[in-house]
């Protein structure tokens, strides 16, 4: 009877470890696959922060140009 129970528990172990590993291996592949798909269709925009900086820089130069032009215009009117 007792040996029977131990054999039974060893069977549990084989089943349990097998399923845990199977589950995690499938998960590993699912996650790798997911990473691939996401990397392909939704690539991270690495340049975006730099881009926004340049745009603000551009905006700034444009603004400065406009101000300079306005001041110039004002001076011209006075002169």
């Amino acid at each position, binding site marked *: 009877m007792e040996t029977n129970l131990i054999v039974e528990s060893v069977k549990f172990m084989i089943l349990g*470890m097998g399923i845990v590993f199977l589950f995690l291996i499938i998960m590993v592949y699912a996650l790798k696959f*997911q990473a691939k798909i996401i990397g392909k269709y939704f690539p991270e925009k690495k340049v975006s922060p730099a881009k926004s900086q340049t745009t603000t820089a551009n905006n700034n130069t444009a603004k400065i140009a406009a101000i300079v032009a306005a001041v110039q215009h004002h001076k011209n009117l006075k002169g």
Partner: protein
Amino acid sequence: MNKKVVAFILLLFFALFTTNSFANSTHEVANESAQEVKHEYKPKSITELMASFYETTGINAILNPSDDVMTAEPNPADARPMTAFEQSWGRIIMFAIVILLFYLAIAKGFEPLLLLPIAFGGLLANIPLANMGGAHGMLGIIYNMGIANEFFPLLIFMGVGAMTDFSPLLANPKSAILGGAAQFGIFGSLVGAVMLGFDLQTASAISIIGGADGPTSIFIANRLAPEMLGAIAVAAYSYMALVPVIQPPIMKLLTTDEERRIKMPKLRKVHKLENLFLPIVILFLAVLFLPESTPLIGAFAFGNFLKQSGVVERLSDTMQNSLINIVTIFLGLGVGSKLAADKFLVLETLGIMVIGLLAFAAGTAAGVIMAKIMNKFSSEESKVNPLIGAAGVSAVPMAARVVSKVGQEYDRSNVLLMHAMGPNVAGVIGSAVAAGVLLSIFK
């Protein structure tokens, strides 16, 4: 004319009859309450009063055990008469154990968040006559509210999900295998428990301690061996608190100095969407292969999904803080009700403590050995430091911290924390899967 008279007489009868019956019933009620009042006001001499008061004291209950004291059970049908030992010395021993738990939690800092409520619940459960663990006692109500139906462990899992960051696992998915290997702690000790003479169901409930996952242990214990819930929960949480003591010697024993110094490559940056889809992927895998584990994994995935969505900050904040705190209080008190002398002071408790420790050690060892194997088969640029295998037992994030600490003992510049977090969170999933397998066996 005649008809009217008949109708009048009928009505009169009816009225008389009803008032009469009313009067009767009120009379009865009055009688009953009068009797009760009479019972309460039975005159007594001062010595009689003193004696009857003494009978209701705890001193008397502990000094003079009586035969008609029943155990306090959340389900009254389970009650059995308490033995004299359980009523007297049993309670005193339990008070001492509770005080020891207080000491460990407060002075030694062993998982105080859970051990304190559990120990205090144990204190309350051992009060004689108060029956706090019974269906109408505070602990019994809490137990029936959320532990008997396994609700509280699920809420805790939700909070754990909301607190967990899966980025390290996503950056290095194969580290999940280490979280699987550590589940050997569960199944290996299952065989050990059966050898010690536990039946299969109880052995399964005990061996889940090897998963180093408190809520899962409570969840499973409640299904498979509710009478041992207290001992299992206390063992699980004590060993989790002892992670920094139990794990390092095993880790050092199984690795060489060279292996402990292995530096692992920097983890890649993980896309936000990967984090968002991960709980859904895991849940779907559970749905397909192991619906039995979906209560645990479902709650976990829900918590994590809300966190990763980034649009429900308030909800995820509640899960991580207020909700999990409230549930922790109730869970602790409810589990503590199982520390009553009649449930805890049985020979099985000793077995549970021993097997729990072995399970925990076996899980750690299996994780480290698996990491060594992975290291043998990995290329030069993707080396695996075998120490991170020890984090395969759940105990998030304590196991990962211990790994990092041990790693830095040998090389100060070697930071393993993030690498160990991968197996660590995989261990949470792994133990939930293992729990699902055990449940499916006993379905």
